[in-house]
């Protein structure tokens, strides 16, 4: 038994990533409950059709896999749960946008085997208060993480998409 414990300890010392690797970090409904203090507003939908579809395709570099996206609005805050493939698997991320600026970014589900470091606040904090410039790009540089290039790229694309959809939803709901 002692040798088994030693083996496990040795493995964890050699591969600390085993403790921290991908998975479900937070269920989307728990994320919504947390950010809206337990009072999640009614879901609304925005359709990715016409020019909106073209812009999203431009932002992502490919079509978004669905034609409509849900969001939740409370005052000027909107919540978005979006997915983008890092290398082969979708990364599910929650965004809170407040008056056109990013308030919160949280990686909810990470299914890839590499690049999970993007979930940490040292990376996601870089998006704080970011907004879209006139070229529909993030108004700041987001530093990458070596070994997580594709995941970083995916999150930057999703952040731009969330900001754009927030603009669209505000214009529509105004």
């Amino acid at each position, binding site marked *: 038994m002692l040798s088994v414990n030693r083996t496990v300890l040795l493995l964890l010392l050699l591969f600390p990533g085993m403790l921290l690797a991908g998975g479900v970090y937070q269920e989307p*409904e728990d994320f919504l409950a947390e950010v809206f203090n337990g009072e999640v507003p*009614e*879901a609304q*939908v925005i359709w990715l059709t016409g020019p909106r579809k073209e812009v999203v395709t431009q932002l992502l570099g490919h079509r978004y*896999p669905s*034609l409509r996206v*849900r969001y939740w609005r409370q005052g000027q805050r909107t919540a978005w749960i979006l997915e983008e493939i890092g290398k082969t698997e979708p990364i599910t991320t929650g965004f809170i946008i407040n008056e056109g600026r990013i308030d919160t970014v949280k990686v909810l589900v990470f299914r890839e085997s590499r690049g999970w470091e993007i979930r940490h606040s040292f990376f996601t904090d870089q998006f704080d208060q970011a907004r879209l410039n006139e070229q529909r790009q993030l108004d700041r540089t987001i530093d990458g993480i070596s070994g997580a290039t594709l995941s970083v790229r995916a999150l930057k694309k999703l952040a731009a998409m969330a900001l754009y959809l927030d603009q669209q939803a505000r214009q529509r709901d105004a």
Partner: protein
Amino acid sequence: MPNRRQEKNGVKWRSVHTWHRYLGASAALCVLILAITGIALNHTEPLELDSHYVQSDWILDRYGIQAPLEPLSYRAGDRRITLTEDQLYLDRRKIGESYRQLTGAVLFNELLVIAVSDNLLLLTRHGELIERLQDTGGLPGGIKRIGVDTAKGLLVVEASDGQYQSDADFLHWQPRTDRGTDRDSATIAWAVPTPLEATLKSTLGDHFRGEVLPVERVLLDLHSGRFFGSAGPWIMDAAAVILLLLALSGSWTWFKRRG
């Protein structure tokens, strides 16, 4: 005139040389297989060997890969939704990722609604995904069947804890209050599986077989010899030993010539 010792050495040298040639010829085919598959396997990602699939009937038969005999299939309007193992098809076209447990499909308000993997897929009639509804979005869990309340014009699901109906946007689900009454059973048209037409069944069967076995798997099996059956690895082991002997006999011959 050569003495006896020189004559003996000459015979030994010729013998090694002859054996070297025989060994080389006998290992040639295995070495070719090892070298070609080895080079290809070293470049699996750029060659996309793991995402290209073997189409050859002979190889697929050799691996014993068969299409399911009776895939589950539903008719929704004039479209056909079929689940073959983990692959979902709209008519002949494969839809997205891998799925499990198809429990129904209906045409509702010009949309295709498919209950699969405990989710509801909303598709346009052309098969474009509108949204994937999941329990995290309020969809009742454990969907057993799906139908349309023809009297009220509502989509209905039977979940693990009862029947629910959705609003027009599929955003909210409410428990049905008239469940179990005569009126209820009379007005809901539940989706029921129907046998697949022979031609479509054959087409989907061929398609399924052609999406199962990655080229990389076959190359790995060729490289290890397992492709040739239980004796294959031993043959490849023998080829490796022969290569070892070739290296030794080649080196020995070279030294003798120099000497």
